[in-house]
């Protein structure tokens, strides 16, 4: 039973590795503690509820929610096609889709600018339609979707591949047409993978900085999301920057708890084989 003290089983980990592991943990944990230590608690509430802060937080939550929804709508079909379909250059497409994971976000921003901007690839066509995307809230959502989509696709494609399509084959021989198979079999089976993928995409969207700044600019209430607000405040009011950073740390902790904290082997998940569950890819909120 879990309550009993487990006898020390052989682990195969040499002692000196523990020392390095402690250093590694400190590299991650210490900076977070430093933020908490630096917070000006007396003014914390006024600082995080100031008009620009609330406006930035609201914008961040709205745009991240929108980009997560967009990631789900576009990412599920892409993951399905990559995992199940068979077509030429599939491997190349898979690599290209993953590119934003390793691309510096500022480069992504420039790429988006020269796609949707006035001078961009689609700029002329969009202008004819009367659409101005660059430096608008739409641009923020697009930038976030660009960087977050691979997270959802990777975690979902993994779930689809390891699960295989045997359940789908059985459903088809039982008389279910493809749309019923998708709705009643595929979708419920990938739900855990989809949920963790969506949480990661949301987190990545929330932390987006480089692509947003390059492609959408920093206009209060329109494109200035929380990370941009923090970066600006850092120069004029470091205390406010720290307070807002703590808000994002809290959000990140919640996200990690949601994505990784699911009880393993719980009955709630309803997974017999456990093959469909995925280890989510690490979330990244990197700044150029």
């Amino acid at each position: 039973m879990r309550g009993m003290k487990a006898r020390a089983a052989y682990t195969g980990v040499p002692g000196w590795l523990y020392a390095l592991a402690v250093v590694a943990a400190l590299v991650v944990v210490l900076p977070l503690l430093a933020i908490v230590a630096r917070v000006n608690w007396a003014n914390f509430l006024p600082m995080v509820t100031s008009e620009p802060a609330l406006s930035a937080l609201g914008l961040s939550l709205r745009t991240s929610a929108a980009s997560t929804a967009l990631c789900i709508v576009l990412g599920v079909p892409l993951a399905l096609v990559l995992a199940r379909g068979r077509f030429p250059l599939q491997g190349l497409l898979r690599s290209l889709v993953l590119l934003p994971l390793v691309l510096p976000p500022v480069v992504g921003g420039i790429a988006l600018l020269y796609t949707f901007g006035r001078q961009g690839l689609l700029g002329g066509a969009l202008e004819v339609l009367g659409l101005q995307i660059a430096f608008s809230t739409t641009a923020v959502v697009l930038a976030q979707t660009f960087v977050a989509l691979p997270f959802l696709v990777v975690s979902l494609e993994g779930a689809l591949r390891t699960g295989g399509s045997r359940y789908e084959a059985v459903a088809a021989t039982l008389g279910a047409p493809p749309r019923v198979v998708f709705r009643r079999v595929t979708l419920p089976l990938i739900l855990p993978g989809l949920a963790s993928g969506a949480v990661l995409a949301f987190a990545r969207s929330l932390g987006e900085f480089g692509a947003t700044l390059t492609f959408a600019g920093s206009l209060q209430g329109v494109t200035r999301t929380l990370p941009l607000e923090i970066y600006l405040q850092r120069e004029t009011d470091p205390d406010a920057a720290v307070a807002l950073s703590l808000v994002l740390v809290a959000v990140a902790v919640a996200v990690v708890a949601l994505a990784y904290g699911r009880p393993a082997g719980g009955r709630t998940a309803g997974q017999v084989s456990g093959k469909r569950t995925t280890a989510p890819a690490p979330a990244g909120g990197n700044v150029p």
Partner: protein
Amino acid sequence: MTFSFQAAVAGRGFDVALTVGPEETLAVMGPNGAGKSTLLASIAGLLKPDSGRAELDGRTLFHLDPKQHAWVPPHHRGTVLLAQEPLLFPHLTALENVAFGPRSGGTPKHLANSRAMHWLAEVEAADLADRRPAELSGGQAQRVAVARALAADPALLLLDEPLAALDIHSAPLLRRLLKRVLAGRQAIIVTHDVLDALMLADRVAVLEGGRIVEAGPTRTVLERPRSSFAAGLAGLNFVPGTMTGTGIRAGRGREISGHLEEPGDAGGNNRPGVAVFPPSAVSVFLTDAHGSPRNSFPVSITDLEPHGDLIRVRAGGLAADITPAASADLGLVPGMTVHFVVKAAAVSVYGT
């Protein structure tokens, strides 16, 4: 009401033609990689053969040749696949799993549920209706899977080693259940177990290397096998060769005299034929004990293995069953040269 099938898959060396009569169950047997799964997958529509055609009750399932390209998708075929693993949908209860087929066919929920309850009762699993697959044992899950397959009202039921994943306690129960529900139903069952063929099938087809090497009523195939695989299933020694007036001339100069099953073969017509005899009819001697009318072959022992309460001696591609005491008396060990002796009267000889 007949199922006819002919298909070729070049990449897998698969070329099979077969028919299943109405209310008939055909057992397909064969070694691993013989093409049994390819057969079921192309019938179910999960795999597209390079060429061929199949018809079920007058409906074309596929017709693929250079001029025609007819292909019915799996969900319109009426061929339900029951696999080795139950593959119950983990997010649905047993009842919802069984109701899946009817509901996919457009049956309203309450009707589908009552039909599912009927089939759950039929497989003695009515009390499991509200359980999730994770809460079922292997045998229970496979029973629910049988109910799910039958509730979909298949025109042709495809069973892919349905008992192979079950433990020795659940398998007999499910075998009896399958015997009951397969009666009067058109079905193809892929199996490794000769007991399944005996209990469940009317006919047997032996698949080897992507081809059907032997087919016929189960009893005939097991009593007078014409392929070494079928002989192995029946537990018989099988020596192919050409027919002589008194028996078989096999490779390596081995002559086997036996009882000619077909009177017309007495002349010794050099037709291909086989000599078949049970391991229990073979005696093992250390020296050549030639007494007419006996067959005696010098052989080198390859293996000794327990076989029921006897010892099975494998040598020279043949098997002999002797008592442990006899084995100990003779001091048998692998590598030893001995003589297998079998009375001509115990050997059946017939053409193939």
